[in-house]
């Protein structure tokens, strides 16, 4: 008999081709065939055969035991967002599977490739209300790009191949494969073939030269062209192409929340970030440009504000791989239905070199106003309690904008997006579309494992950390060197801000009595420090970054601070408030 280490060597995987193995083994082998070496999961009855098979592959294949299945998907998401490869997670049937749903919905709305594999009860028990039986295929249908239930072992290789192909191609998204226990234990002759096409699925639209030419002529005529880009640029790996495009005609460019890190923040054409708490210029100039060039973004309501007062004066060009996004929220004059990389390359060829110095200067004027009214006192306050912005500013300068930043949801998220200088590729990991509190801690785990040698800092609120604080256990068990910064305002700050501004300061259930976070970290043997004084901040952050291993820092920040600018819900981007 071969030993476990022997059979698990990648080069020896081929030896299983054409041999009879169990469904559970086939699941692992199929994953290895797809280049997977990291999975996040949690065992239970219906997935036990898979865990048993995992036992033999421990050195090829690293399984991270999370502390809650939601943590497994978020970790898989963090992994995918940093590496560009699908993240993989495993869960048992019933509660294990339902615990995945929030993360799956998050991955769906933020176009993140994730492959979820759930165990299911024995096929003959389906529909009988058997122990831990849930219709997870039904439940996950609205929030997956594709899902499928396997009841026959022989389907495993083909379905897994298809799942990976679907998850990562076109507009990426989560897929779920539910596998009954009998399919995991029964044997069949294993053969693996990668999926190269599905006839009912056309992930790569063929670019139409007519659309490119029409867009180019609009851009060439434009006096005040304006690029707004989103995560599509990162997914298409089109950062360079975007830069060349913007530079050729000297077009100012602004990012959506998920687009951050796709464009160098210190570049003269970069004007900032869009949306409800975005920068002043980027928001108001949307209603002053003459040609709006949207690239790989979906005109989310947090970006557009009131649609009836959004970019009405402008001709709109939309570069988008998902046809359903075109004309969904904003009516376009020219759309380029294509992969962003390809579209930008083609477009750059057809536009004329140009200058828009005065137009760009208008953004710079806005920047000055914003700096005087908001940024300066946020980043460099001289008295009072520590502000979130100065923590982020310090971190940005200590890391020179090169860390991977994972944020949770709330004020700290908006502040981080405003003040961190995202200089390195794929370095902004946040829950955008769903706004899932509890995302950051597990996503940071995945992000750290997604690529070697990248510094990962999770910036989390005192509320959000407590939604997935158990994942400190995962960090402890595997000694995952993530840095965790809790910006503690003892409030569900973002909700409190709305209560202050729109609900007459009636702080209903938003104040928090918090535990001693440092003691909790200590319980997991994670080094930690609480900072309350401004003088201590810089040194403590530096010490955290120098520490070899995981670290948790709690910073006590101003309790009732508000994030500005702000576009109140339902308002026009022009009516952004500066305070």
């Amino acid at each position: 008999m071969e030993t476990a280490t022997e059979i698990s060597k990648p080069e020896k995987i081929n030896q299983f081709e054409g041999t009879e193995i169990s469904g559970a083994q086939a699941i692992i082998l199929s994953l290895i065939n797809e280049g997977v070496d990291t999975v996040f999961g949690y065992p239970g009855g219906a997935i036990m055969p898979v865990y048993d098979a995992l036992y033999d592959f421990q050195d090829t294949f690293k399984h991270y035991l999370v502390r809650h299945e939601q943590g497994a998907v978020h970790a898989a998401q963090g992994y995918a967002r940093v590496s560009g490869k699908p993240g993989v997670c495993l869960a048992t049937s019933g509660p294990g599977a339902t615990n995945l749903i929030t993360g799956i919905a998050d991955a769906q709305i933020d176009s993140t490739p994730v492959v979820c594999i759930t165990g299911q009860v024995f096929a003959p028990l389906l529909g009988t209300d058997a122990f831990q039986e849930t219709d997870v295929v039904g439940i996950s249908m609205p929030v997956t790009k594709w899902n499928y239930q396997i009841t026959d072992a022989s389907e495993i290789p083909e379905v897994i191949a298809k799942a990976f192909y679907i998850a990562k191609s076109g507009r990426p998204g989560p897929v779920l494969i539910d596998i009954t226990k009998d399919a995991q234990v029964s044997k069949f002759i294993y053969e693996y073939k990668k999926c190269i096409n599905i006839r009912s699925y056309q992930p790569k639209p063929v670019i139409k030269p007519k659309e490119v030419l029409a867009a180019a002529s609009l851009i060439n005529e434009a006096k005040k062209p304006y690029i707004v880009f989103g995560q599509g640029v990162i997914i298409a790996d089109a950062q360079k192409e975007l830069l060349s495009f913007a530079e050729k005609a000297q077009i100012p460019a602004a990012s959506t929340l998920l687009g951050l890190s796709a464009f160098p923040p210190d570049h003269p054409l970069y004007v900032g970030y869009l949306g409800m708490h975005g920068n002043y210029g980027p928001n108001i100039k949307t209603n002053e440009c003459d040609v709006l060039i949207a690239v790989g973004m979906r005109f989310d309501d947090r970006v557009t504000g009131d649609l009836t007062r959004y970019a009405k004066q402008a001709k709109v060009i939309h570069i988008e791989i998902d046809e359903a996004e075109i004309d969904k929220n904003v009516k376009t004059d020219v759309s380029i239905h294509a992969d962003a990389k390809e579209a930008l390359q083609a477009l750059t060829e057809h536009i004329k070199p140009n200058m828009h110095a005065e137009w760009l200067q208008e953004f710079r004027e806005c920047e000055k106003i914003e700096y005087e009214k908001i940024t300066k006192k946020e980043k460099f306050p001289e008295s009072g309690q520590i502000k979130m912005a100065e923590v982020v500013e310090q971190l940005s300068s200590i890391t020179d904008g090169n860390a991977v930043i994972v944020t949770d949801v709330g004020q700290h998220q908006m502040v981080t997006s405003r003040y961190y200088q995202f200089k390195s590729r794929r370095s902004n990991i946040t829950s955008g579309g769903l706004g899932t509190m509890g995302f950051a801690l597990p996503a940071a785990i995945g992000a750290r494992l997604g690529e070697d040698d990248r510094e990962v800092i999770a910036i989390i609120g005192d509320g959000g950390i407590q939604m997935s604080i158990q994942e400190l256990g995962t960090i402890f068990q595997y000694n995952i060197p993530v840095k965790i910064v809790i910006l503690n305002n003892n409030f569900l700050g973002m909700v409190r801000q709305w209560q202050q501004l729109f609900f007459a300061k009636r702080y209903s259930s938003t104040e928090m009595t918090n535990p001693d976070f440092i003691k909790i970290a200590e319980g997991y043997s994670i080094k930690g420090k609480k900072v309350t004084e401004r003088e201590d901040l810089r040194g403590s952050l530096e010490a955290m970054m120098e520490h070899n291993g995981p670290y948790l820092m709690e910073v006590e920040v101003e309790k009732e601070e508000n994030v500005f600018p702000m576009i109140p819900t339902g308002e026009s981007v022009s009516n952004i408030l500066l305070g």
Partner: protein
Amino acid sequence: MQKEENKEFTLSILTENKSGLLNRITIIFTRRKINIEAINVSETEVHGVSRFTIVVRSTHEKAVKVVKQIRKIIEVLGAFLYEEDEVHYQEIALYKLPTKMLTSSNQIENLVRSSGARVLTVGEEYTIIEKTGHSHEILSLLEQLKPFDVQEFIKSGRIAISKSKRQTVSFLEEMEALSLVS
């Protein structure tokens, strides 16, 4: 902005014959609170390919958006949106009446003949009349038959065939070719 009016649209959707698809398609309507007026699923002339025919009342804009969402479903081969005059369509209806009503006068027989319906079966107790046509014709016959004690009435969803020259097989070939673009 002027509000667009609701109109009747026929959606014709070609899919792989896979389980779960009906659910995947209908949740797209549910999520947007669009009521499905009629739905029909059938096989096509191509083995393994099904056709869903769905009738909705909606604005054109909403209908277009729904069709684009349906196209995103992996197993959907194609989804087409038609207005009334772009398709040939039919529905089929069955009416059950007591046989004694037919024997007591020839009014029913006249109605059947003048409306292009036919008698499907005559039993001792009841008779079944069948009519194919457009919804309003079928419902108008129902109204006319009501005085004769209609015991049961049922109407199918719409089936529709487009007036375009597109053939399913060549459409599938086109899709297959596009799916190989990399």
